[in-house]
């Protein structure tokens, strides 16, 4: 774990000085940039991606709650539980069949049926939401592929919400502040009338930290890293395991992957520490 953290920090340091890494995965449209893109951006810089290892999640896992809670607390996401019409969410769980809605699952493996699956912004390589924004209030960052939001500029037309095929974007139908249980002073809240969503914790990445949800898991249930680095953990997992993406057929190139292998494969390869640490899981 410690080693992993060190690699990660090194990687984040590399991002900061804009050093290029070897590129092996790059969508054809990745070089398309918006007017405000980073001048030193390079098509083969860092490409952040997330692999959610469904093997490590169980059907009634407090883990999910921990992830959601960590993210929403850190980013001052309002909680409109008693008023669902105003709902705002950055990361949430839906059952596996809903998460992969466009596929039909009738006779799938028992452990996947109804499995709560974390959903968040996919930080697509070819994002339809940024294409439609009339003010460039949302755009894909060239330096690392994060789909960003500028809450100072958003005019609240909600075109990006309409264009997102994953339901990852939320609009502030009213002032969110009263619905924030405890405000985290280090991060801004939003004002009514703007769209918000997950930013891959770019503010944490800038400080060399992993995203809040990854940290909340703590045991590589969610792995975060650079797709352009062949030795990264995300690349390893994608090479060794069966991973799928949501609505891949739309060509949006989501950068959140879901490992759907049988949980029993965890024992084959994973270091013992990982299995030991997966407390509370019923996947063994």
């Amino acid at each position, binding site marked *: 774990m410690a080693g992993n953290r060190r690699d990660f920090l090194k990687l984040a340091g590399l991002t900061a000085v804009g050093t290029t890494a070897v590129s092996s995965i790059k969508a054809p449209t990745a070089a398309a940039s918006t007017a405000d893109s980073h001048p030193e951006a390079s098509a083969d810089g860092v490409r952040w991606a997330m692999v959610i290892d469904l093997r490590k999640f169980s059907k009634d896992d407090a883990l999910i709650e921990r992830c959601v809670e960590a993210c929403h607390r850190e980013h001052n996401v309002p909680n409109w539980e008693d008023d*669902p019409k105003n709902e705002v969410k950055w990361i949430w769980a839906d059952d596996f069949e809903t998460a992969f809605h466009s596929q039909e699952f009738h006779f799938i493996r028992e452990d996947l049926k109804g499995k709560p699956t974390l959903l968040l912004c996919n930080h697509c390589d070819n994002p339809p939401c940024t294409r439609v924004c009339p003010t460039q209030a949302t755009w894909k960052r060239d330096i690392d592929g994060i789909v960003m939001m500028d809450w100072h500029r*958003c005019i609240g037309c909600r075109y990006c919400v*309409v*264009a*997102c095929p994953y339901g990852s974007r939320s609009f502030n*139908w009213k002032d969110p502040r009263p619905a924030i249980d405890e405000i985290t002073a280090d991060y801004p809240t939003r004002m009514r*009338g703007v769209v918000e969503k997950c930013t891959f914790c770019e503010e944490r990445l800038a400080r060399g930290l992993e995203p809040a949800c990854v940290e909340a898991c703590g045991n590589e249930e969610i792995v975060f890293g650079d797709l352009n680095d062949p030795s990264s953990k995300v690349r390893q997992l994608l090479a060794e395991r069966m991973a799928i993406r949501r609505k891949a057929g*739309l060509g*949006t190139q989501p950068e959140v992957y879901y490992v759907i292998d049988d949980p029993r494969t965890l024992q084959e390869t994973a270091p013992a520490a990982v299995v030991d640490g997966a407390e509370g899981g019923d996947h063994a």
Partner: protein
Amino acid sequence: MLEKALTGNRTYWTWIFFLLVVIGAGAACWYWQFRTGLTVTGLSRDVVWGLYIAQFTFLVGVAASAVMVVLPYYLHNYKAFGKMTILGEFLAIAAVIMCMLFIFVDMGRPDRIFNVFLHPTPHSMMFWDTVALGGYLCLNILISRVSLSCERRGEAPPKWIKPIIILSIPWAVSIHTVTAFLYAGLAARPFWMTAILAPRFLASAFAAGPALLILLALIVRKLTTFDPGKEAIQKLAEIVTYAMLLNVFFVAMELFTALYSDIPEHVLHFQFLFMGLDGNNTLAPWMWLSVVLAVVALVILVNPATRRTETTLVVGCMAVFGSLWIDKGLGMVIAGFTPSPLGKVTHYAPTAPELTISLAIYAIGVLIVTGLYKIALEVRGQMKTEP
């Protein structure tokens, strides 16, 4: 010339006052929405666009339809439309202003509206729609103003206005095409992702717009000494008939492709519209009403005897307008969100403030039409005494 809208009899001012009351109520509701947020509408995370954007879409069609009188008159020198063109252009002006207002009231941060111009973004269809609508408004104001003031002075319109009028013809087509592109280019929304959306928008626009124009012309004829002429009305009725037939044909194409291919993400939207989905059938009665109205309209319009009789023609035009308003001003937008990309069905119904704001915007449109038509008729009234 505008001062001509500021004089009138008691009926005129009662009507203006009534419209102002409706507008006032809507303005109050909008202020409340502005202070509280769009939570006062029936919209939610899954249905993010509703009545406002649907009215915008419908009215872009009404605006574009002015071309149906402008084109025959200016391009084919069809003289019978001589008296109608100005009514068409004024209707377009009112419709475009209503469109802009509907977009404005739908914005989460209307205070930042200028960001669209401060950060122009050519890859966004919304940017192009803004350009197209703004341009169309300018064209129509310029054209109607120049031609009306020339008419008042009894002069022929200046030569330089002709190319601008010709330009307004493809421009009219473009506003509704770009509006269709707002929807048709979204992989997330299979219901709208159809190449026939723009043609369908145009067909429905060229049916609903001229139908409205016929009704307006007949109302004006009843209230004043203005007479559009029987030939003009009949020619417009034919245009409505063909456009409505085309529209129904396009809808049938849509239905065939979706239903025969039987791809769930295409079928489900139609199922929601006409049968209801997951127990939610808010729109089904409306959609069937739209179908019935379309049938009634076509029976009346296709049959020459009923088309030529004014009373039945009026019923036919109202049926066309009603049918297409339901189809485009209710069904088209809402069905795109139901079911959501994750397959969820969320109930949407406009709230009272949402309806009041929408009504007020229509009242603003009616007010503009009233004022502008009054100006045109006053100018014409002067003309009458001259010879």
